[in-house]
């Protein structure tokens, strides 16, 4: 194999400094807090949340909008954060899984129901399911199993076979029912 001419292959600093990439300042609201950052326009919302804000509860599973692991809410509606640029979230309210629980020791009722029903195993897809289901339960507070299955049909889980996720949603809905 004929290689290229050898130059220094390693450098503690980049071979050439100063990325000439255009960046823009953005102000984005996440879980009620406002963040100011300067980012590349091509930065995905999922990467922005994870890398710029350290909100690593939003997981990235496919980066083409199929698996649903990266689902967050934009103004209360579920969206795939891997299919959006962070700059598109300017002016909107983003919610992530980190914002669900009321405090450090208590769980959101849907989180508690997932635990009770064993609706998670490895837990990697779980934040996406939770963020998909909360708007769904707002719209359909007392869903049938079939409605639940349709609601999560855009979220992939490889561990649970979905059965206990459906059960968890039923538990959460039952617990939230007004007496």
């Amino acid at each position: 194999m004929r290689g290229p001419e050898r130059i220094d292959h390693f450098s503690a600093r980049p071979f050439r400094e100063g990325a000439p990439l255009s960046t823009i300042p953005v102000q984005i609201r996440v879980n009620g807090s406002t963040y100011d950052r300067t980012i590349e326009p091509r930065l995905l919302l999922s990467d922005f949340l994870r890398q710029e804000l350290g909100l690593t509860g939003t997981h990235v599973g496919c980066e083409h909008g199929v698996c649903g692991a990266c689902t967050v809410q934009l103004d209360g509606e579920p969206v795939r954060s891997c299919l959006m640029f962070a700059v598109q979230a300017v002016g909107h309210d983003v919610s992530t899984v980190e914002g669900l629980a009321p405090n450090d020791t208590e769980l959101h009722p849907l989180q508690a129901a997932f635990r009770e029903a064993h609706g998670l195993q490895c837990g990697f897809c779980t934040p996406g399911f939770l963020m998909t289901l909360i708007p769904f339960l707002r719209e359909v507070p007392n869903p049938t199993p079939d409605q639940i299955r349709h609601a999560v049909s855009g979220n992939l889980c490889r561990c649970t076979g979905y059965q206990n996720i459906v059960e968890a949603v039923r538990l959460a809905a039952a617990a939230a029912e007004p007496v």
Partner: protein
Amino acid sequence: MENLDHRWFGKRIRRNEDPRLLTGRALFVDDVQLPGMAHVAFVRSPVAHARIVEVDTRAARARPGVYAVITAEDLGDYWQPGPLLVSPPPIEGHIFHERTQPPLARDKVRFVGEPVVVVVAESRYLAEDAAEDVFVDYDTQTPVVDLERALEPGAELVHGDLPSNVAARAHQSLGDYEAARAQADVIVARRFRYDRGASAAIENRAVVAQWDERDQELTMWDTTQAPIPIRNGVATRLGLSHSQVRVIAPFVGGGFGPKIMMFYQEELLVPWLAMRLGRPVKWTEDRSENFFATTQEREQIHDAEMALTSDGRILGIRDRFLHDCGAYDTYGLTVPINSQCTLLGPYLVPAYDSEFTCVFTNKTIVTPVRGAGRQHGVFVMERLLDLAARELGLSPVEIRERNYIPPDAFPYDYEILYQDSAPLVYDSGDYAPALAKAVEMIGYDRFIAEEQPAARAEGRHLGIGVVSYVEGTGIGPYEGARVSVEVDGRVTVATGVGTQGQGHFTSFAQIVAEQLDVDPARIRVVTGDTREFAWGTGTFASRGAVVAGNACHAAAVAVREKILKLAAELLHAEREELELAGGRVLVRGQPERSFALGDLAAKANPLRGAVRPGTEPGLEATAYFGPDRSCTASGVHAMVVEVDPETAMIELKRYVVVHDCGHVINPMIVDGQIHGGVAHGIGNAFYEKLVYDDNGQLLTASLMDYLLPTSLDVPTIQTAHFETPSPLNPLGIKGVGEAGAIPVGALFAQAIENALGDEAPEILEIPLSPNRLFELMTARATRTGSAAGAGTAAPARPEIGVPARRAAEPGEAGPA
């Protein structure tokens, strides 16, 4: 179990790990962010088979923000293939050509996705930009894709230094098959195919490495199922001592087998880069890379025949099969040996003659994926039984009942070698009651008598299936655990296996709680951190609970002994008078004469004063467990399916699993393992297929083309458990992680054939799909002249008793 009155073992207990996972606070490898961290992107081969003519990295290196662009040549002495992960068992006369993957391809690429150049930059975005700048000139060669054509004389060679594409061959037999065949009343013979699928964990792989120059220590976060062997291997490769390397497999987002593969090229390159660059380095696989670079299963072609008596008793089985190992055979013979051994199933097979040939192809490397070759064996056996039953006028239930190994025959020695190099001896089992239970739960008799005819009268095609299988689980060599009582009364358990969602943080806590009577919620389990526990092998072969679980048990028993000894001394009581309850040790009936375990732990670790010679500090013990051989879990799956004969779409109406994994630690977790396994099996049977074209290009390399089952495809699964304890370990447990996935292909074939009745094509392949099933149905209708034709044998079907190797598949017959 010594303790018959279980307080914690066997109970449905909510999982300790869930709050962290549910709130987004659990650490996964890609969550690791370190100051100054650089990011890696790979240049991977776009072709399946080629000579590398030239690699030009100048443009990539000139891009701002790039730290390094490395080729195979740049690796110097660090470039070396391998190592071999699993050595072949000592099967007499076997052939094995070891060819393992290099960290970067040099001279030649052997599969699409093989890494050629690694680029390191300030961000992943920049690294990918620079990877695009790398120019590689490939001189393409004919790709080796088809298993049979790979073995034809003159075929292109995946490894040019070998005489052929044969990677391995092994023959195992018992009894005299030819004699059995001569006595047979009936012989059924067919060709069976099983094609590739992906493990498709929702978390892709990731590696982060950090070299601390001052401490001279390397820390590595890795999505591996085997952190300790990774540490050992990385240390050796880098010239470090084991204690200089710490590997952490934190929360891992699903494993399913491929995350036990080692060493992935990336696992060796990322730590090397971190040391060379003097800064932390991260690589996270994207989904596209996952389809090409993460190992896969499970292409095999079997030519098998079964000899039976007229009353449906098996006299013998002969099987010849080809196994696709992909471009390299790093995982040894594990997968094909699992196929070979698991084929025998729960049945008495007096004569067996099985030989497999492993074939190198220009495709992604094959290593175990949930089931690890067992699917193929079960598919062949169950299909042969179904075909024989039809021939003999028996029901699928009857023929299975007649052939089960009886409960008094255990331990049952099959006299061949299993994947762990130990003899294939079934430890325990009781199969007929499980079948009866499944038949009852699915409503088999009523279905045949009423439900199916009633549906058929309405023009609906409902079918039923029931299949059996066994699974060798919990193989050696060993695992260990350390149990420590903390001074606040909490307990810490550390073990070396990695965990990927199996609930180890809870089930191991329950095992320890059973001995110490401390609430499992107050027991912290640490897995997958080599600094916490430095000995072990990993999570594979449904062995975590069996092997590491029994190590936790042994360590907890030892701690219990220490507690009783010290408490007896301090409370001036006899050891026999003491009991452990509610986190305390007390003199039975005298709660005032007691210690909280935390206080006792403090007393066991004095700051001053003298202790007796030989005294060990603390309430802590380390223990190891290694079984003699694997323990045999078993089960029966049954289902009712509706097939739409117009569209070949299916709907799963009912699904039942009766399973026996010995004593159950936590029924909630066991059921969850089964649900997930069945879902994986359903995908493998009807939705998922890795389709390679003639150029070795993967055509289904996205989740839009490769269909994972969704919540609309997986039915509610009813489960029931039998507990035939394993005599091979003190807890009497067997593994369950893979069980759900194993027999599903065989079940689909039987149930779909049953649904289509006389018009059914023979289903001799998995995966199916609506398209493939439609093709099979159309071919069958064409051959018989009309879809309404009677159930005459298809002309393309091989003659009974004639080796089927050269016969066309039913589905391949063209239109008349």
